[in-house]
């Protein structure tokens, strides 16, 4: 087996860059190639892959094969995960902010009857659907949240007025029934969040 082949195979098998010393250690004491021999093998391998979509790259900790950057637009599809679905807790928080803004996290918690995780708030802020519009003058000065223009844009609304009107509490039951039919036909929300793979 010749040195070049062994080195090429080793570089392909490794899940990290390999230094010249690490490559030398692949070989037994008797057959270990000298540094120059190894370097010229590496050069030859790099040449062989000139025309291929991968290349031998020297990085700080050694040598490794890499995908050529031009192929990123295609190869990246491999790593794109199907977007996850938002949790019920997040949707409720978003809905409460939309209908009851401006309000603090404490207000949201009071309405939901359970605490609101920091993660949910952060997700809504990251997504730019919600922003901090002030701080309430009570101990701790909690942030006051409201929805954003991006929120309206995303849901294709000109203003919050266009959000579907909500019934007063006593009407909830009736309206819930009224809404049931078209909602269920449309699908989202009530059923399983699982996406079949």
């Amino acid at each position, binding site marked *: 087996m010749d040195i070049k082949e062994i080195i090429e195979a080793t570089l*392909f*098998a490794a*899940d990290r*860059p390999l230094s010249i010393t690490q490559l030398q250690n692949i070989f037994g004491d008797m057959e270990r190639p000298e540094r120059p021999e190894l370097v010229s093998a590496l050069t030859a391998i790099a040449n062989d892959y000139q025309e291929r979509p*991968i290349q031998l*790259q020297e990085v700080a900790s050694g040598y*490794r*094969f*890499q*995908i*050529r950057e031009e*192929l*990123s637009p295609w*190869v*990246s599809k*491999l*790593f*794109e995960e*199907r*977007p996850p679905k*938002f949790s*019920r807790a997040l*949707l*409720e928080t*978003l*809905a*409460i902010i*939309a*209908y*009851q*803004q*401006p309000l603090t996290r404490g207000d949201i918690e*009071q*309405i*939901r*009857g359970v605490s609101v995780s920091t993660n949910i708030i952060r997700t809504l802020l990251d*997504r730019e659907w919600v922003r901090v*519009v*002030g*701080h*309430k003058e009570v101990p701790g000065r909690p942030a*006051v949240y*409201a*929805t954003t223009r991006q929120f309206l844009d*995303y*849901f294709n*609304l000109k*203003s*919050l*007025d266009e*959000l*579907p009107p*909500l019934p007063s*509490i006593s009407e*909830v*039951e009736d309206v*819930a029934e009224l809404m049931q039919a078209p*909602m269920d036909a449309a699908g*989202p*929300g009530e059923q399983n969040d699982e996406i079949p793979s």
Partner: protein
Amino acid sequence: MNDIGEPREPPPEPIAVVKGEPLSVAPDDLFIPPDALEVFLEAFEGPLDLLLYLIKRQNIDILDIPVASITHQYVRYIEMMNVLRMELAAEYLVMAAMLTEIKSRFLLPRPVDTEEEDDPHAELVRRLQEYECFKKASEALDVMPRSERDIFEVNVGTETIKVERKEPDVDLKEVVIAFREVLRRAEQVSHHHIQREPLSVRERMANILDRLQSVAQLPFSDLFNRKEGRQGAVVSLLAILELCKDGLIEITQSEPLTALHVRPLTS
């Protein structure tokens, strides 16, 4: 527990006889150091495996190895395990019983029609053959090229690949349904009062707060937009009053009859 065949009688008496004797009196040819026996037992994957070993060991002359001999050897191993009080899978004992029964059948004159009842000897042979098939298959499987030992996958750096993170999609209906659920729950749990200002007021409240983020205060009149007409003015006024009530802003007037100002409540 494995069901090894038809119900059998309990293991026959030889085991009990040997059990009574101390280890030192065991016949010389039976003596095996206890640790060796343990190794021995670990080398087998069960009674079929042990039996197969005993048979294979003597394939020099087929005719010389009758069931009786195999049974005898097998039972002696089992007795020894018992003498040494070694933990023995029950399957070994069941097999000993089965072998002994087969042996006793051979000693009795054969019935004329052997077809009628099931023949435990033939069944045992079938099972030994079947087991040997799979034992060989597992040995073959072990030497097949396999990942981690013979097959190595190629790893190539993917640092050059840029991946966009995708955000989950939400339907407006889901937001509405979520809020409906909140209302229903709120009603069930307590008589929590959810205020029901028109959304335009709520939106205006948020806008006013937002504008007050960047400036210390705003003239009261700046919060009204002439173009919005009377209705817009009402919305603004309600929003301001609501914010005052919530303790989020205050309305100030430096002197009587001067312009009103609105500023966020900050200490």
